[in-house]
């Protein structure tokens, strides 16, 4: 199953209708971040649901908005107040405590320094210590949380990637099992490194697919190109986008005597570079 299968599976619709279990919904969210096509389709479906909800004749009563805006306004005020309080409170306390202690130390003689004040100072220092301790622990926790989050994200990314590979593999398995495809194994030609690829040729639509490719890594300015040998002549069957996993649809051929893959410049060549032929195979 590739991208188009994810999109056509119906899972995206279920996700937006709120019908997917949490873990699966989470997977869809991850896929949407990774694959723009999925994101686009989700937007489209969400648009349909939105438009559909609008075709209703039903509306909230007119008074709801005024009431709501009033509540939002008071939230806004609360926000500002809350912010001010949090900042001012501890500062004032600390300042007052400071004042009393300097007062007693400088203006009054030492013997007037009473036990109550000393105790409150100790209390204050203790409290301060605890606050500092908690704050540093909090910082540690936050650091840990961030690194945990990063780990979870990377695991998730791997999972999504793994899933895509699985989908691709199961798609390929299905093609192997399906009798309507002619299976042609392309094997390495003499003098080239060991390599292989699989061609599936649809007997109904005559479409040619390439899959299960294990070919040497290409330099970035080169690309593998598939050729069909028709009547002794090589005919371009398309350049290959996916180096390793998945099934790629190539061109349509009514007949072909063999298939071969050569390494060509990026974008493909009009005629194959025969020295750069890696694999070849004939329908049995």
């Amino acid at each position, binding site marked *: 199953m590739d991208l188009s299968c994810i999109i*056509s*599976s*119906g*899972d*995206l*619709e*279920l996700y*937006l*209708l*709120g*019908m997917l279990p949490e873990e699966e919904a989470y997977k869809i*969210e991850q896929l*949407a*971040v990774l694959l723009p096509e999925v*994101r686009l389709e*989700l*937007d*489209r*479906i*969400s*648009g*349909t*649901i*939105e*438009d*559909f*909800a*609008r*075709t*209703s*004749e*039903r*509306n*909230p*009563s007119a008074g*709801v*908005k005024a*009431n*709501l*805006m009033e*509540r*939002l*306004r008071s*939230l*806004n005020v609360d*926000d500002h107040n809350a912010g001010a309080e949090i900042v001012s409170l501890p500062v004032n306390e600390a300042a007052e405590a400071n004042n009393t202690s300097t007062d007693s130390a400088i203006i009054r003689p030492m013997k007037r320094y009473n036990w109550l004040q000393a105790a409150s100072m100790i209390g204050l220092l203790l409290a301060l210590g605890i606050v500092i301790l908690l704050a540093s622990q909090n910082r540690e926790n936050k650091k840990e949380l961030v690194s945990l989050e990063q780990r979870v994200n990377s695991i998730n990314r791997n999972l999504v990637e793994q899933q895509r590979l699985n989908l691709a593999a199961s798609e390929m398995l299905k093609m192997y099992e399906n009798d309507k495809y002619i299976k042609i194994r392309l094997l390495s030609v003499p003098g080239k490194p060991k390599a292989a690829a699989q061609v599936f040729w649809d007997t109904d639509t005559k479409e040619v697919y390439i899959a299960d490719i294990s070919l040497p890594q290409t330099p970035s300015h080169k690309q593998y190109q598939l050729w069909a040998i028709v009547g002794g002549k090589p005919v371009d069957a398309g350049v290959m986008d996916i180096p390793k996993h998945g099934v790629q649809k190539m061109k349509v051929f009514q007949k072909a005597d063999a298939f071969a893959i050569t390494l060509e410049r990026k974008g493909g060549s009009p005629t194959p570079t025969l020295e750069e032929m890696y694999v070849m195979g004939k329908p049995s």
Partner: protein
Amino acid sequence: MPPSQNYTETSLIQGLLAHDEQAYSYLYDHYSKALFNIIYQIIPQQEVAEDVLQEVFIRLWQNITSYDASRGRLFTWMLNITRNLAIDRIRSKDYNKQTKTTELKEDVYEKRSEQAIINDIGLKNTMNQLPDENRKLLELAYFQGYTQEEISKLLNLPLGTVKTRIRSTLIQLRTLIGKNNS
């Protein structure tokens, strides 16, 4: 509903992040109807649904920073929040005290769908243009909130078919709404 100010989705989100009242006013004018109807599918009672609607907008106000535009359009995010709040409400003790809980049974299906849709002419008009089977499916999925497994049992269809048919129903709906609007 004439908007008091023109917003693009980006400028709207900026306004929302700044807790700008104008932006929330626009958001309400623009989305309250759709969101209200999402709530109403789950809680078909005007007053309760209106109350949840207010809760939704307050939640949007409080949590706007958690909206991540890279994950999807604004409506998708609001849709999730709306549905969750509506479901929370219908599961809450207060709500259940006043309304008897109905179990998911086959014979309940007709009643519930009547309650939710039949008196809504707009939705009914749209839905009536769908083929019978697809309409029933949409009613179950969209209005009754049945799970795929429940729908599969109710309609005696394999799970895979339920999924792909929900998809094709929504695609039909998309073209339908497009046609009606133009």
